[in-house]
Each structure stands twice: as C-alpha cells, then as structure tokens.
C-alpha cells in the first residue's frame, strides 16, 4: 500500500485504486481486459463522482508541470475514461463483436 499522500488532498477515496494510475494507454487497456466487471464497476463508482472535482483541481496546474500526486490523479482519470465504455455501455471488458481485432496505440502524448 502506498502512503496516503500519493494523491492530492480530497481524493483519498481513490487510494485503493492506485494500481490504475498508469501512464500509457497500452497499460490501461491491458488492465481493462484483465479486470472483472465487478472490479471496474467499483473503480468507476468511486472515481466518477470525483471526475469534475479532479478537473477543477488539476486545472490549477500547468499540464507540463504537474506534481507527482496530481500526475497520479490524472492517470487515474485516464483509466476512468478507459473503463467507462465497459461500465456505461458494453457490460463486458471487451468491445462486443470485436473478436480478434486489435488496434495498438503506438504514438500518444504522455504525461
């Protein structure tokens, strides 16, 4: 367990989900495929109400100069976006009817 100051004040509820604080899309996508719906639902239910507060908090900083706790918070919100389709739409980790199709993100702006 990482220490409590890993995330900015007010976002402590996300501490149990720090494994989702992943800096790249391939890592986030792989974790989504390896997770159960119950795990993603629990993460979503905690993170979604904190999305708007997170945007408000993060916008006080320049994107290029985010302190470590804010960076972790941003990565968590990127993972929230990643699980939003399974939770809000598909009710399953994979895109339905996507079979063996894949699409690798090979260039992305990293924060």
């Amino acid at each position, binding site marked *: 367990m990482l220490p409590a100051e890993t995330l900015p004040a007010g976002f402590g509820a996300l501490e149990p989900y720090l494994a989702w604080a992943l800096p790249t899309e391939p890592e986030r996508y792989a974790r989504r495929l390896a997770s159960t719906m119950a795990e993603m639902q629990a993460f979503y239910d905690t993170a979604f109400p904190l999305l708007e507060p*997170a945007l408000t908090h993060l916008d006080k900083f320049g994107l290029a100069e985010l302190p470590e706790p804010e960076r972790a918070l*941003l990565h968590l919100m*990127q993972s929230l976006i990643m699980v*939003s389709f399974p939770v*809000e739409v*598909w009710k399953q980790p994979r895109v339905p*009817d996507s079979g063996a*199709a894949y699409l690798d993100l*090979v260039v992305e*702006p990293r924060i």
Partner: protein
Amino acid sequence: MPHFAKPAEGSWTEHYPELGTAPVNYSDSIDPAYYEAERAAIFKRTWLNVGRVERLPRTGSYFTSELAAAGTSLILVRGKDGQIRAFHNICRHRGNKLVWNDYPNEETAGTCRQFTCKYHAWRYDLSGKLTFVQQEGEFFDLDKADYGLKEVACDVWEGFIFVNLNPRETLATYLGEMAKGIEGYPFGQMTEVYTYRAEVGSNWKLFIDAFAEFYHAPVLHAKQAVREEADKLLGFGFEGLHYELFGPHSMISSWGGMAPPKDPSMVKPIERVLRSGLFGPWDRPAIEGLDALPPGINPARHRAWGIDSFVIYPNFMLLIWAPGWYLTYHYWPTAVNRHLFEASLYFVPPKTARERLAQELAGVTFKEYALQDGNTLEATQTMLASRAVTEFPLNDQEILLRHLHKVTRDLVKEHADAAR
C-alpha cells in the same frame, strides 16, 4: 423523401453517369494476380502520403517508411537546407538496408548528422551524397559522385509529405481541385497526435469501403449511443449532406449533431462531464482559421455539418471534424488479403488537464468504434474469397465505394493496355 437535397439527376450516383448503377464485382479484392496488377499500376507510380512534416522537425530528423505495395523501403529526411527528401533505403555498396533498428523490416525514426551503413560503414550526408568509403583505395575507379543514395520524388502539400516512385505529374496537379479547396485549414496547429496501428486480414479497399460510407453507422454502432438515441438514428438511417468526385479522389460531407448534443441526456455520463465523444471535444480550440473554413470544407455550408471525409487516392483518407480537429487513415497493402491500417488523431495541444482528458475520451471512443469496424473485415474477406457471390448492389450513400473500385479498375486496365 430524402432529408437532404440530392442533385437534379435524382441521385448522387447518377450525377456521375460514368459510374453506372449496376452491382459491383468484388473479385478485385480477392484475386492475387489483380493485386500484383494494382501494385504495378497504382502503388509504384502514384503520389502516396507517408506522414506529416511535424515528424521531421529539424535538420537531420528522419523516419523510414516500409512500402510493401510499392516493393521498397524509403528514408525521409530533412536536409541542412530545410528541404525534405526521400531515398530508397539501400546502401549503394552491396544493397544492405541502410537505416533500421534491431529488426530490418520495422520502421524507425530519429535524428542524425549522416547515414552510416551497418555493414561496411559507407557514409551518406543528409542530401544523399556518398561522403565516405571504407578502404576506398581497395576499389577500382570508384567515383563517390556516382554512388549517392537513389532519390525518390518527394513533395509536401499543407504539411503532408508525399512520395512517388515514378511520377507522371506534379503533386499539386495530382491532388487537384479537391485539395485546393482544403488549403488553409490550420493543420499545422494541430500537433497533438495519437496514432493507432493494426494488421488487418482484408484487402486494402475493403477498409476504405468501411470508412467511406456512414450507411453502416446507425446499425453496426447502435450500442454506442444510449437506447432512445440509437433507435432514432436507425429510424432516420443515414444520408450524406454532399458528395463530390474529383478525378481519382472523392469526398463525403456529413451531418453530426453530437458535439455538443442538443439534449445532454442523450449521451453517456462520461461524455457529459468531459464534454467530448466520438465527434471530438465539444468546445472548439481557441485558434485562428476555424471560423471561416476553406470552401472545400462543408461545401454545402450546412448548419448541421459535422464531418468531411476526403479519400485521397489511393490509400489516404483525411477527416475534418466540425469541433476543430482532424483524423487521417492510411491503408498499406501487404498482400491481396492483408493490409496495415494506421489512424492518427490530431488535436490542438491541450493547455489544461480538462482539455487533455476531453481529447483522451475522443481517442478512446475512436478505438471502440474502429474495433467494431475492423472486425467485420476479415470475415468479409473470407466470404468474398468463397466466390459464392461476386456482385454486390451498392446504394447511393455508397457512391464513394463505387468510385474507388472503378478508379482502381480503370487504372489497372489502362496500365495493362499500355503494356500490350
């Protein structure tokens, strides 16, 4: 009754009588001999887009481009004079591939002062001149001036780099009126890039087909919208605002009411908070050049306009979205039934986390849709190869597909006739 006006002839297709309205034969997507003919007639002598100038920001910046369909690998490099040049990626000594990393068949990129062959250390400067030969005295009458890298025609349009192994006309002439109509769009300010790649088990034309019509959208992607919205879309079906053909190139202009939606309850919760979705971030970036669009974009000047898709023949598509960003597709054939698909999303660099996450949602949403689009193709390829059915009726909203296959057929025939 159509929701949007069609040409006086009654349909977009009949506005171009040379297209005909008969079912289209798809043997052109399964026959290996035909694929070889396409390589010779098209990919070895047509202007091909290999990327953006932002990939070559300074002197010595380079990337390689594997052009299986044209049967070569190219080096793209920015020289000391600022000019971008293309060379065949082959050392003049004994044919070693000049620029690669670890895996000779994978593309690579970087910055260098010169190119040094891994094999015997022959060196070439950024303009392709041979500048150093290891143990030069061992050779017979070798004049370095005769052994520069083999250059390939290379030109730039609006920041897009094109190459052509055997040009018969300039890039500007080839791109013609359609491209002229887009000039001035602020592509150069949209430098925040997300690139996706997949190898797809289908003929290259089949994936262009999939993205050159939106007739499929209300059906294949029905589950992506909330239920009532999906039902409404299915009831409407799809109709383009405008279609236009320009020589080998073509475009479709489409409506798109989702950015922002009229009724926020019609979109998913995450879209409401982030103000973004498939059509991109709802709030346009604060840059010049988005208010008065070039005449070729939203040519019908329709209020409900959402997106224009331009097919720049043969294998490059450019999609310009109303909220102020663009998308490119490339389809690089590797066999009659395989191609490498690349998609890049280009946004104005975000200043805040809010803007960054709105773009993130657009990218994630794009991938969800593209996975559905891509997965139907391999099965289509297999069934076409069965030859159980060879001719397929294309409707008026599929005019760009009819055009793509006709242009290809005509070029292959013209090339074969000339060889006779």
